Each structure stands twice: as structure tokens, then as C-alpha cells.
């Protein structure tokens, strides 16, 4: 009886361990690109935190807006102070999941990812096709999607309308390892 109880306990703990299989990165990569008639603007953030639950397919991403690096200091200043107001809204988050998730197979695969993107204190549902690559215990996720600045209540003044695009292309690359 006692042995049966121990076996049951071991099985239960294995299930719990499996259910909590999470992969994490604290140095994920996100960039955005704006193409406007007068100039192209790129900004890069290499300190993105992301967690993937390989049992449920849930994905959570967090980043600091002040970690975005621009080529020009003035652009970075305007981005933080005038557009994104990073003192008031310091973080951007994504809370989502892999659609029709069963598992992430070994090697390359593509999955649709859906979720809520929060930038500048505003939520927006987004959906994008992401590329996954599983190699042993490491999983990389990469993908691109577009966001419209108006969806996040970001005001682009008329005077710089030819410098900043209303639609921004966002690229993500996350290399996740066991927690």
C-alpha cells in the first residue's frame, strides 16, 4: 500500500513538473522599422524578457521602452518623451498563446500566435505567424508583424508626418532556454 502511495506521488510530481515546463529569455531581441518619405527609422531592444510554457503554448513578453536604441539620440529622446511617454508607460507587454497548440516539434515549425499587445497603456489584439525552431532544450521564436501607431493612441504631429510612418513593422527574435 505504502509503495503504491509513493508511486502515485512520484507520478503526480512528474505530471506537475511537466505541466510547469517553462522556457525563458531575458535578453530577447525586438526591433521596429518605420519607413516614411523623408527617412527610415530603426530601433532595437536587446533586453526583452519572454516566457514560453511548452505544455500550454502560452507566451508572455515584456520589455522596457527605454531599452530601445536608435541610431540618432534625438530620435530616441523624442520617442521616449513625446510619442511613447516612457516615464508614464515604461513597459510594453504581450500576453498570448499558440493557436490550436499541441506541441512544438523538434526542428523547424510555424505556428499562429494570438494575444494582446499593450503599448502606451493601450491594448490591441494581434495575430501573427511565428517561426519556431526546437533544438534539444532550446527553442527560438521569430516573427514579424505590423502595428498602427493610432491603435495605441500615439500622436504623430503633422510637422513630422513625412518622417514617421503610421504603420510600424515589428520584428521579434527570442532564444529561450529552460528556466
Amino acid at each position, binding site marked *: 500500500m505504502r509503495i503504491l502511495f509513493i508511486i502515485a506521488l512520484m507520478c503526480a510530481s512528474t505530471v506537475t513538473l511537466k505541466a510547469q515546463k517553462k522556457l525563458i529569455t*531575458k*535578453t530577447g*531581441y525586438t526591433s521596429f522599422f518605420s519607413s516614411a518619405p523623408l527617412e527610415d527609422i530603426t530601433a532595437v531592444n*536587446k*533586453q526583452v*524578457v519572454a516566457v514560453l510554457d511548452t505544455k500550454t503554448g502560452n507566451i508572455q513578453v*515584456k*520589455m*522596457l521602452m*527605454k*531599452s530601445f*536604441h536608435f541610431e*540618432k*539620440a*534625438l530620435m*530616441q529622446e523624442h520617442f*521616449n518623451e513625446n510619442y511613447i511617454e516612457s*516615464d508614464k508607460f*515604461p*513597459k510594453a507587454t504581450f500576453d498570448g498563446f499558440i493557436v490550436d497548440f499541441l506541441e512544438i516539434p523538434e526542428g523547424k515549425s510555424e505556428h499562429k500566435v494570438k494575444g494582446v499587445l499593450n503599448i502606451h497603456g493601450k491594448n490591441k489584439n494581434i495575430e501573427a505567424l511565428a517561426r519556431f525552431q526546437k533544438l534539444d532544450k532550446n527553442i527560438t521564436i521569430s516573427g514579424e508583424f505590423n502595428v498602427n501607431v493610432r491603435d495605441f493612441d500615439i500622436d504623430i504631429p503633422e510637422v513630422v508626418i513625412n518622417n514617421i510612418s503610421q504603420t510600424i513593422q515589428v520584428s521579434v527574435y527570442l532564444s529561450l532556454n529552460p528556466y
Partner: protein
Amino acid sequence: MKKQTKQSISIALILFIVTIIIVINYYNKPHINVETESADYTLSVQELVEAYTIDETHADNLYSNKIIEVTGFIDTSYIEYDDLVVILKNKKQENVIVTCRADQQHRINDLKNGQLISVKGICAGYITDVIMTDCIITITSNKFKK
């Protein structure tokens, strides 16, 4: 053309050129050079992490977007996306994640896990750890964590 008119045109032209130069310089102003600027705050990893875990808003008001110099023991250091990344270990779960300036990449050869170092850079804020960007390694010591 009258001498006075000629003078007025010359002054207007000079003013125009000076304005253009000022605007171009302002548009292309360089990023803050943490090497030449002095630190707004000098503190330990424990002090910095504690400030953020106790009151994130207050800590952001103090340190966010400021140049800070932080001293602590290296948990690990590695190169990622061509940048030197150093994790400074705190006693608790939260650490300080330091991303260095591109020209600091070669300093990885000077760094060992457990070594006491100081870094100077810009504090970006806190997610699961305190994040520092554009950093330079200011001091590497022979002290190691026991």
C-alpha cells in the same frame, strides 16, 4: 547695389548658414557618452535591486534614464547579438542585467564568474531584473565571491 544692401544680404546669408549648422548639429547630436560623463549615482547591486523591489516607481524616479555606476559580483558574462552581456548577482532572485556598449566586447576576456566589478551605464528600469544599457566596465578587481 548699395553698400548697405550688400551688407544686409551678407548678414542674412551668414545667419541662414549658422541656423542650418545649428539645426544639423541638433538633429545629429550624439548619444550620451557614459565614459566622459560622471555617474549620477554610485551604488551596489544590492542597493539598486532593493530600491526597485521595494518601490519601483520611486526607484524609476531616482535612477531611470540616469547614468549609474554599480558594483557587484559577476554571475555570468557572455556575448549576445555582438554585445557583451554581464549578469551581476544579487543575494535574492532579482539580478542586474548589464548590456555593454559595442566597444566593450573584448572585455569579456577580463571577466570571470564570481569576480567583483563595477560598471557604468544608463539605467533603463526593471522587469524581472534591473536593466542597464550602454555600459562600460569601469573596474575589474581581484576580489571573488567566497
